[in-house]
C-alpha cells in the first residue's frame, strides 16, 4: 500500500469519495449495458414477438373444429417479428461478445449452438408427426407447445451442465409454460404460450433494466 500511494498521488488519485462513487457506478452501468447479450429493449421486443406471433396464429385457429392449423397469411404475420427478433438478437450478441473471451463466454457460445440445433430438430421432429396424426396427437402435445417443451427442457439441461444459471431458469420456465398450455387444447395453447412467454419476456426486461442500473456503492 505504501509503495503505491505515491504513485496514486502523482496519477491524480485521492479524488473526492462522492466523485469516486459516481464514477464507479457509471463505469459499472456502462459496462453492464455493453456486455449484456440481451438488452432490456430486446427483452421487451421479444414479449411483443410472442404476443403478436402466437396471438395472430391463435386468431386464425380459434374457431377451427376440428383443428387444422394456422392459415398462411397469419403464419406470415407471425414470422415477420420472429425474423426481426433473430436479426436484432444476432447483432446484440455479436456486439456484446466482441473482444470478450474466457470460460463463461465459451460456455455461452456452446449453449447457443446447442439451442440453435435443438430449435431445428424440435420442428423437424414435430412437424411430420403432426401431419401424420392430422394435428391431433395425444397427451397435450400440440404444434404450438411441443417445440417449446423440447427446446425448454433441452436448453435447461444444457444450461445446467454449462452452469449458465439464468438461462437454465428461463428455459425451465419456457418448458413449464408450454406444458401448461397443453391443457388449453391445440388452438388455446397458442394463446397461453403467447401470453405466458410475453409475460416472461417482460419480467426479463424489467429484471435486466433493474440489474443494469443497480448501484454498487449504494447496495
Amino acid at each position, binding site marked *: 500500500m505504501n509503495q503505491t500511494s505515491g504513485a496514486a498521488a502523482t*496519477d491524480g*488519485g*485521492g479524488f473526492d469519495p462522492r466523485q*469516486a462513487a459516481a*464514477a*464507479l457506478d457509471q*463505469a459499472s452501468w456502462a459496462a453492464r449495458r455493453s456486455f449484456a447479450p440481451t438488452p432490456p429493449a430486446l427483452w421487451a421486443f421479444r414479449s411483443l414477438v410472442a404476443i403478436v406471433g402466437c396471438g395472430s396464429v391463435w386468431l386464425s385457429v380459434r374457431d377451427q373444429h376440428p383443428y387444422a392449423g394456422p392459415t398462411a397469411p397469419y403464419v406470415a404475420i407471425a414470422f415477420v417479428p420472429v425474423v426481426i427478433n433473430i436479426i436484432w438478437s444476432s447483432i446484440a450478441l455479436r456486439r456484446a461478445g466482441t473482444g470478450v473471451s474466457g470460460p463463461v463466454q465459451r460456455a455461452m457460445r456452446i449453449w447457443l449452438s446447442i439451442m440453435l440445433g435443438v430449435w431445428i430438430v424440435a420442428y423437424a421432429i414435430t412437424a411430420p408427426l403432426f401431419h401424420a396424426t392430422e394435428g391431433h396427437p395425444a397427451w397435450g402435445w400440440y404444434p404450438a407447445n411441443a417445440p417449446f417443451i423440447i427446446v425448454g427442457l433441452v436448453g435447461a439441461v444444457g444450461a445446467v451442465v454449462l452452469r449458465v444459471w439464468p438461462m437454465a431458469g428461463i428455459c425451465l420456465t419456457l418448458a413449464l409454460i408450454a406444458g401448461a398450455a397443453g391443457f388449453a387444447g391445440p388452438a388455446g395453447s397458442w394463446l397461453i404460450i403467447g401470453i405466458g412467454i410475453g409475460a416472461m419476456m417482460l419480467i426479463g426486461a424489467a429484471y435486466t433494466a433493474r440489474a443494469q442500473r443497480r448501484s*454498487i456503492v449504494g447496495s
Partner: protein
Amino acid sequence: MTTEELDPLIHVPTRLKIVATLAALPDGDGLSFTRLQDMLELTPGNLIIQLRKLEEAGYLASEKTRNGSTQKTTVALTRKGRAALGAYTQALRNLLGGLDMSATSDEADTEQITF
C-alpha cells in the same frame, strides 16, 4: 474513516473505470485491449500505463495471443483484483455513510440554532 484508507491503486479515475469495467464480466472472462480502449475512450499509451500498474499489483492478468501477423492482448481481473474492488467499494460505502451522517448532524445543528 479517511480517504487514505481507500486503496490508492484503485482510487484513481482511470484505473477505477478499468477495474469496474472488467469486474462487470463473469469471473475468469477477459476483454481485448482494443475493446477496453474503445469502451473507456483512452489512448493506447495511457491505457498501457494504467494496466501495467494494475498488473504489477496482481489485480489483473494479461495474455498475449498471436494470430498470423496480428497480436491480441486480453486482460482479465484476477481474484485478488475482484477482492480489492470489493474492499474498495466497502471502504467507499463506509466513508460515504460517515459523510452523510456528518452532513445530517450539521443540518440538525443548524436547525437547532435557527429554532
